[in-house]
Structure formats: structure tokens, C-alpha cells
């Protein structure tokens, strides 16, 4: 029943053999040494400072949504860096391997990467950037911000939240393992049928790709359930739907997409695995298989996924613009409607990823027009951000700069997106680097929004601001890099350069490839600036301490609690009176109003179970990749056993006594009082409160 394999196989190690370790590869072997030394140094440091207990208790077993969110963001940033290095390798290969006279090293005819290796680099770049950088970064922010914005103590399912994180981490670990054990897939992040079939990709690369994607899809789906449940069921008293902060709305629309689309991906990949492992013919060219079925199934997930990552980014921009314009978001209702319009249309456009497959003109026209419809709500969003600035009082802080950068990139991406939406234009640029430049413009909207949000919400989570000067230096370097890489790339697209070439035949393109290389060098500098930013900010953390309202002009509910946010979020859940609750309270002098008395708080217990199951999913995926059947069975049984054990354990949680809450609150307030004498003294007094407004629910009711 199992398909015969080209290489060796043995019952103990499956396909794993010594020659699968690239110890003689001139790029990977030194890299492995560096990574191993780094890991050893980290372990030594943790041991030296006796931090293992802290790490275990406070991070590895935590179910606190903020800590899980921070770990999501750390995974996202680390993988963003890995993906960036892949991008650097791609650019360097193309500028080097240009023209028949270009030299070649390390066994390549041109450049320094053989075609198969180059294929792995860009495939890993794509997969990592979308599913291991953009997705965890956004999920991380949703994790941290959404529960605070809706006034909840934690997610609806804290344990499930931890499980989602550790499964995502397992996916990240698996793709990193493919660097040093075996190969990664060469057939693009989305997979080409039937190139991924075992006849054309005999190695383990495609298997790594399948199981990485499966793990990430599972992790993200679990997160999606959690965020939807949290928003629907755990809103603070008084928070009706149209008082929901805009980022929460964006998260809701995004996660509805995620939850409904990820199963399509999981199914499609399961069928690919069936083809490769069991010899079925779902997506083969012959024997009844249909390769275009795969392409359809993949993009039925793939396009909604694009909006799953862009909608939270839009939400972030919608939070940043009002704060630094010092006025409410223009057209809140329209913004919400636009988010859901984008989410809805996202289901009807997948075919535009393969207009060139030769569908009839009626089909292509339908998907073309459906695609252009997305431009309407997106256009509305852009106008609304512009009108948020109109009649405002704009501060061009670093966070605002990133948001404005995102807005301009969105205009570029929108213009080129409308070009690609028309089949008559699409035929000329479909597989060209023009498309690559287009979707990088769009995905960079996310990166810009994420860096803006890192700066914007960092003080909320850690209690001190990031350094403005270095944040701006990083912004300008990053933006220069964006222009340097993607303007020439758009030009190359009009010259006809197609994507994924590991050898570029046309020497007339050389100046543009060089310009792209300069651009990526500027990106390198911005990475350095980011590290300097972190160093300087942590060094000056006492000086840059902030109180609850870090920016002085904040608007939504997360700014009502302390910075850093206490693990119980709010000592007493506030009553919501207005859409921009904090702005409203500031206006009425209620920001500093404290509850009359504190009550016991019920919190979930920490558990190591999520970490164990996450680790076991990694083992399972690794064993599947290498076809080590005994290990597959063992890890699967262990996962099921742990799930059963956990289901009998239950978690009654624990109680923080009211007195303890009061003590912690007093401490936090005292700390804030010390800081508040500085930059943004909170206003007292203000306009009188309208009659029935309530700051906190009446205590006897609770």
C-alpha cells in the first residue's frame, strides 16, 4: 500500500540516514555551528542566572494570554528574520547568476546555489513569511490586545490558547529542522501540482512542507476559535457590538475567515500526503487525478488567508491613526462594514491566482470583477484613514510613521492589484516579478502595521516605551530598502522577468538586480537599527517608563488598565459607556477613578500539558516526514493519552483574594503616580459626567 521510495528506508530510522545531514554543505554546515553555539550560549546563560525555574513557571507553562501573545510575537520576529535572510540569499543569487558569463561556485553553474537549493530557499521564504512571520505576529497581537480591549481577564479558553502557541512553535521547529536534516520543499510555498508528487520530488522536502503547513493550520484554527469565542462571549458590561474597539472588529472578521478557510488547506494537504505516502491519485496528471483541483483547493484557503493577515493589520492602522490624530476614527461603522465586506468577498476571488490556466472568458470575467469588488471596501478604508487625519492634530511619532507608510504602500499595492485583477493585463505579468512586487507591497503593509503596533503597544505590555529616535531611524532605513528593492522589481516585471529564476539569462536586467541588492542591503541596516532600538530601549527602560495611558491621547479600553498590564488585566471589570471608552473617560475626568472596593478574582492555573502536546506534535510531524512508523504511532498514542488525561484533570482555577488584589493595585497606582509627574499628567476634572454613566459595575451587583 505504501509507495516505493527512491532512496533507502529502514524500520528504525525510516528514510533518515547520515547522508541526509548536509555536513559537507559549505553554507549549511557553518550555519549549523553558529546556531549550535548560540543555543549552547543561551542554555549556559539561563543556567548561570538560575532562570530555568522562572522560564518554566512564568513562560513555558503559562496560560496568560499576554505572555502567550509575546511568545507568538517572538516566534514571529525570529522567523521574520529567518525569512529575511532567505530573501537576502535569493537577491544575492539573482544578481550573481546573471548572464551566461556569470561565475558559479559550490557546484552551481551560475551563482552559489544549485537550482534545487534555490527552490528550497524561496519556498521556505514564502512559507515562513506568510505563516510563520505575518500570522504569528498578528495572532500574537490579537492574543494580547483583544481580551484587554473587550475587558476580559483572559481568553475564553486559556489552555487552548497555550496549545495553539505550542503547535505553532512545533511548526516553526519543523521548518528549522529541515535546514539541517534533509531538504525543504522546492515547489514554492503554495505547492505546484503535480510537481510535488513523489515522481518529481522524491526527497523529504515536500513532506516537511506538508506537515509544517498542517501544524500551522491546526495552531491557527485553534487560535481562531478562541478569539471568536472571546469577542462574542466575554465583552465587558456595557460593551455592545458597536462599542467594540476597531481592532477587535478586525480580529473578529479575520478569525471568521481563518476558521472557515483553514480546513480547506488541511484537507488539500491531507490529500497530497495521501498521494505521496499511499500512492493515491488525487492530484496526479493521470489515472483520474486532477492537478487543477489542488490549485483550486489551495487558493480557496490561500486567498482568504491573505485577508486573514491583512485585516488585523488594517485594524492596527485604525487604532494608530486616531491616537496620533487626537480624534476618533472617521466612519467607524463604515470601517466595520468594510472589514466584513472584504472578509465576505475573500471567498469569491480565489481563481485570480491562476487566470492563465485557460478557464473560459466567462469564468475569468466573474473572478476578475469579484476581485475588483475588494477594491471598494479597501478604498473606503484608505479614505477613512485620510479623513481621520483631516481636522486632527497630527503627531508624527514612530508608530504613526509606520502606519502612514503602510497607507502609502497600500495605495501602491492597490493600484497594482487592480491591474492584476484584469485578465487581459494579468496574462502579461501573472508569473512575473511584477506579481512578486505587488504582493510584497501588500504584505509589507502588514509588516509596517506590525512594527507600528510593536511601538504602539510595547509600553502597554512592558511598561516602558521604545526609543523614538532609533524607531524612526529603523523606519527610514526600512522604507529606503522597500523602495530600493521593489521599485526596480516592478520595473523588472514590465521587462518580463519571471519569478523563481535561479539563473537570470538577460544581462540587460543587471542594473535593476544590483539596485535590488542595494535595497536589501538597506534592509540589513534596518535590521541592525532594530537591534540597536531594542538595546537602547531596554537600557533606558527606567527613563522611558509610562503610566496607564502611554501616549496621552489613547482611546480604547486597553489603555485604562496599568502598564505593564497586571496578569488579571483589570482589578474590576470596567463598565463601558462609549466606543472610545478611555477618550470618553479622559474627557469627563474619569480616567483615574478607581473602583470602590475590590473583589476576589478567579484565574486559570498554569499547565505544562500544552507544551507536552506541542512537543509531541513536532515528534509526530517529524516521524511522518521521515516515515518512521513506530515513532508516528507512539507519538500519536501519547498525544491522545495526554488529551484524555487533561480532560479528566479539568481546571478549577484559583482565587486571588480581594485583599491581595488591593495590595497589587495600590502598588501599581503608586508606581504610576511616580511616573505620571513626567510626560503626560492625567487631566483631572473635565466636563461633568452625563447622568447614568457608570465607571464600574455597582459592587453589590457583582
Amino acid at each position, binding site marked *: 500500500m505504501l509507495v516505493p521510495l*527512491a*532512496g533507502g528506508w529502514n524500520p528504525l530510522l525510516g528514510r533518515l540516514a547520515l547522508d541526509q545531514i548536509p555536513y559537507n554543505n559549505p553554507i549549511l554546515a557553518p550555519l549549523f555551528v553558529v546556531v549550535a553555539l548560540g543555543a549552547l550560549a543561551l542554555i549556559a546563560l539561563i543556567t548561570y542566572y538560575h532562570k530555568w525555574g522562572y522560564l518554566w513557571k512564568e513562560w513555558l507553562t503559562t496560560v496568560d494570554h499576554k505572555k502567550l501573545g509575546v511568545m507568538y510575537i517572538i516566534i514571529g520576529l525570529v522567523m521574520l528574520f529567518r525569512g529575511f535572510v532567505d530573501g537576502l540569499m535569493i537577491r544575492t543569487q539573482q544578481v550573481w547568476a546573471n548572464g551566461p558569463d556569470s561565475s558559479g561556485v*559550490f*557546484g*552551481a553553474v551560475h551563482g552559489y546555489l544549485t537550482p*534545487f537549493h534555490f527552490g528550497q530557499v524561496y519556498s521556505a521564504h514564502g512559507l515562513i513569511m506568510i505563516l510563520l512571520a505575518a500570522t504569528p505576529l498578528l495572532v500574537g497581537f490579537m492574543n494580547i490586545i483583544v481580551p484587554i480591549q473587550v475587558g476580559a481577564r483572559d481568553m475564553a479558553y486559556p489552555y487552548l490558547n497555550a496549545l495553539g502557541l505550542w503547535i505553532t512553535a512545533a511548526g516553526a521547529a519543523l521548518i528549522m529542522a529541515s535546514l539541517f536534516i534533509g531538504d525543504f520543499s*522546492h515547489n514554492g510555498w503554495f505547492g505546484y*501540482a503535480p*510537481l510535488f508528487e513523489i*515522481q*518529481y*520530488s522524491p*526527497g523529504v*522536502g515536500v513532506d516537511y512542507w506538508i506537515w509544517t503547513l498542517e501544524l500551522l493550520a491546526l495552531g491557527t484554527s485553534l487560535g481562531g476559535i478562541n478569539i471568536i469565542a472571546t469577542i462574542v462571549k466575554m465583552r465587558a458590561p456595557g460593551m455592545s457590538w458597536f462599542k467594540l474597539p476597531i481592532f477587535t472588529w478586525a480580529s473578529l472578521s479575520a478569525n471568521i475567515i481563518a476558521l472557515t478557510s483553514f480546513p480547506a488547506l488541511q484537507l488539500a494537504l491531507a490529500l497530497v500526503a495521501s498521494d505521496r505516502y499511499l500512492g493515491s491519485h488525487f492530484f496526479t*496528471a*493521470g*489515472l483520474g487525478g486532477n*492537478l487543477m483541483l489542488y490549485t483550486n483547493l489551495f487558493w480557496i484557503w490561500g486567498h482568504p488567508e491573505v485577508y486573514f493577515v491583512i485585516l488585523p493589520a488594517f485594524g492596527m492602522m485604525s487604532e494608530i491613526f486616531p491616537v496620533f490624530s487626537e*480624534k*476618533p476614527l472617521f*466612519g*467607524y461603522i463604515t470601517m466595520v462594514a468594510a472589514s466584513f465586506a472584504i472578509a465576505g468577498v475573500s471567498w469569491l476571488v480565489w481563481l485570480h491566482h*491562476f487566470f*492563465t490556466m485557460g478557464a473560459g*472568458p466567462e469564468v475569468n*470575467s466573474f473572478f*476578475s*470583477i469579484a476581485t475588483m469588488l475588494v*477594491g*471598494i471596501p479597501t*478604498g*473606503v478604508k484608505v479614505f477613512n484613514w485620510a*479623513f481621520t*487625519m*483631516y*481636522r*486632527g492634530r*497630527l503627531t*508624527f511619532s514612530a508608530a504613526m510613521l509606520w502606519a*502612514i507608510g503602510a497607507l502609502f504602500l497600500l495605495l501602491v499595492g492597490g493600484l497594482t492589484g*487592480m*491591474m492584476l485583477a*484584469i*485578465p*487581459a*493585463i*494579468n496574462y*502579461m*505579468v*501573472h*508569473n512575473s516579478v511584477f506579481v512578486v512586487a505587488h504582493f510584497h507591497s501588500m504584505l509589507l503593509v502588514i509588516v509596517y502595521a506590525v512594527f507600528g503596533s510593536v511601538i504602539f503597544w510595547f509600553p502597554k505590555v512592558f511598561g516602558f516605551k521604545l526609543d523614538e529616535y532609533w524607531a524612526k531611524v529603523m523606519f527610514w532605513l526600512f522604507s*529606503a530598502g522597500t*523602495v530600493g528593492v521593489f521599485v526596480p522589481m516592478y520595473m523588472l516585471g514590465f521587462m*518580463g522577468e*519571471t*519569478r*523563481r529564476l*535561479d539563473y*537570470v*539569462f538577460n544581462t540587460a536586467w543587471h542594473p535593476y538586480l544590483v539596485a535590488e541588492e542595494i535595497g536589501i542591503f538597506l534592509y540589513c541596516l534596518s535590521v541592525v537599527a532594530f537591534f540597536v532600538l531594542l538595546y537602547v530601549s531596554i537600557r533606558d527602560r527606567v527613563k522611558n517608563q509610562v503610566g496607564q495611558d502611554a501616549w496621552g491621547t489613547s482611546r480604547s479600553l486597553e489603555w485604562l488598565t496599568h502598564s505593564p498590564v497586571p496578569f488579571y488585566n483589570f482589578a474590576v471589570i470596567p463598565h463601558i459607556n462609549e466606543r472610545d471608552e478611555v477618550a470618553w473617560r479622559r474627557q469627563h475626568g474619569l480616567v483615574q477613578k478607581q473602583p470602590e472596593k475590590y473583589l476576589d478574582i478567579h484565574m486559570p492555573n498554569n499547565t505544562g500539558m500544552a507544551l507536552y502536546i506541542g512537543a509531541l506534535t513536532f515528534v509526530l510531524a517529524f516521524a511522518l516526514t521521515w516515515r518512521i512508523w513506530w515513532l508516528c504511532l507512539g507519538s500519536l498514542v501519547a498525544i491522545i493519552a495526554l488529551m484524555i488525561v487533561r480532560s479528566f484533570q479539568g481546571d478549577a482555577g484559583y482565587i486571588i483574594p480581594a485583599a491581595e488584589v488591593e495590595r497589587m493595585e495600590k502598588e501599581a497606582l503608586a508606581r504610576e503616580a511616580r511616573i505620571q509627574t513626567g510626560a503626560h499628567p492625567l487631566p483631572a476634572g473635565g466636563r461633568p459626567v452625563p447622568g447614568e454613566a457608570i465607571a464600574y459595575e455597582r459592587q453589590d451587583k457583582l
Partner: protein
Amino acid sequence: MMRQRKTMALWGITLLTSLWAVAANANIFWIFDPKGVMAETNLHYLIIDVLIMGGIVGITTLLTIWFMWKYHKGKNRGAYDPHWSHSNVLEVVVWGIPIIAVGFLSYFAYKGTFEVNPYNPTVITKHMDPKGDPVEVDVIATDWQWLFVYPQYHMAVANELVLPVNTPAFFRLTSSDVTTTFFVPQLVGMIDVMPGMRTKNALLSHNIGTYQGYASDYCGAGTSWMRFETRIVSKEDFKNWVARVKSSPNTMTYASFDRFAKPYINVHQRVVYYSHVQDGLFDHLMMEVMNGKTWPVPPAMTENMVAYLQKQAAEHRD
């Protein structure tokens, strides 16, 4: 800092403009320099789209920059209104402009899709000279070469496409093993070439010249070298060329195609003429693939292809 930034921006703009200028002289913007009817039509729609969308995007950009300038805190250029967040008039405008633009573009998208429909491009078929004989070409993509079969002449050419000027050419396309895309930027847009399936495309050029064609979708290790020159020649030259192919000693049968389709990276751009081709090769291949025939790629051409590349480079050194 501000001054430095301005200098840097100036340098950047100068560099990018000079890149553009270099390009304009060398005429290397193939998409803007179409030499075939299909590519010209594509460019036509590109211009319409960019004019409509560019107008909107341009105005929005200027508007945003103006707001940024005018409402800069502390400069006191514009009046601050801390509560203004809604306007029915503006709502109508912000929804209206994109709706109208998309309405216009939808009309052009619909029209254009029929004009360059690869199966029946009305820009070619509507204006076809009833007496002009179209050339038929069966395009077969293998791992990683192109085979162009001319069924009217019972001949084939590997990795070179030659067509007479002012004559419509109609393609049937399929692949022996994996999916890729057929693309000649200056003549005709992309069409997927899929194993066990048949797609179509068409081309008409009024310009004699040599244009680059290539596989524009990744299909394995040999993708980057999977190119073919497309020569549009005078009708006289085409006759001579056919005669030259016909004098080649090579022929292509079902059996020799089986050997031809084995994975091969065309690093040295070899072109081969086949004076005779067994009839029905295209349909025969389609049937074979549908019945499960594959040409597997060995691990030596995937994971460990260093040795393969070196061997191949040595074999072809003149």
C-alpha cells in the same frame, strides 16, 4: 538628520530615474514594447486601467499628504476638531468613487477578457484574412525543454519557435509531466501548460524580429534554462526555414519522444530540428499521460544535483 534624509532621498530618486532612463533607451521594457496583436491588446488595457486607477490613487496620495501637512500638530495650519468623525456626504463620496471606478473597470475587464481569450482571441479571429493560412503548432513542454510540432509540415523543432509574419498562429499546448507556463512577453501573454490536459493560445505578429520566449512558471530544477527564441520571419524565409528543417537527419517517433522527454536541463540552449514527426504525437502523449505515464525525476537531479550539473557542463563543452 532631516537634511541627511533629504540628501539620501535625492540620491535615491536620481538613481531610480537613471535606471528608468537607461531602460527607455535600451527598449527593454518588453511589456511596453509589444510586437504582436495579443500583447498590444494587453498593453491597451493596462493603459486604461492605470489611467483610471492612477487618477484615484494619485488624488488620494496628494490629499493624504496635504492633510499631513495641514494638520501637523503645533504648526497651526488647520483647525482642530476633536469630535469630527462622521459626514454623510463624505461617506457617499468614499463609497461612490471606488464603486464608479470598479464599474468602469469591470466593463473593460469583461471586454478585454474576450478579446484576448486564448481559446478564441477575437482581436485575431475577427479580423482574420479568410485566405490567409494560419499556422498550427502543437506545443509540448517536457522536463525541461520545449518541443514545437508543426502538424501541417509533419516536422518538429526543439527549443526554437519560428513563425511567418502577418499570419495567425494557433497553438495547442500540453506537457509531458509537470505544469508550467508558455510566455513570449512581446508577442503573447501567459498560458498554463498542463500534463494530461490541452490548452490553447494564438498569436499574430506584424513585426519581423527575434523575441524571447520562456517557461514562466517554476517546474523543477531546469526552469531557468527552459527558454526558446521566437523568430517572426518573412513568409519567404519561413519557407526556406521549413526546407532546412526538412533536410535534418533527425526524426521524432513515439519511441524517440519517450527518450526526448527524459529530464534534461538545457543549460546550453540546444536547438534540434526533426524533419519528420510521427502523426498524432500530441494526442498520443495526452492519452499516455492520462493513463498514468510519467517521466520521474531522479534524486540525482533534485537533492544531489551538483554532480549532474558538472557532468552536463562537461559533456557540452565545445
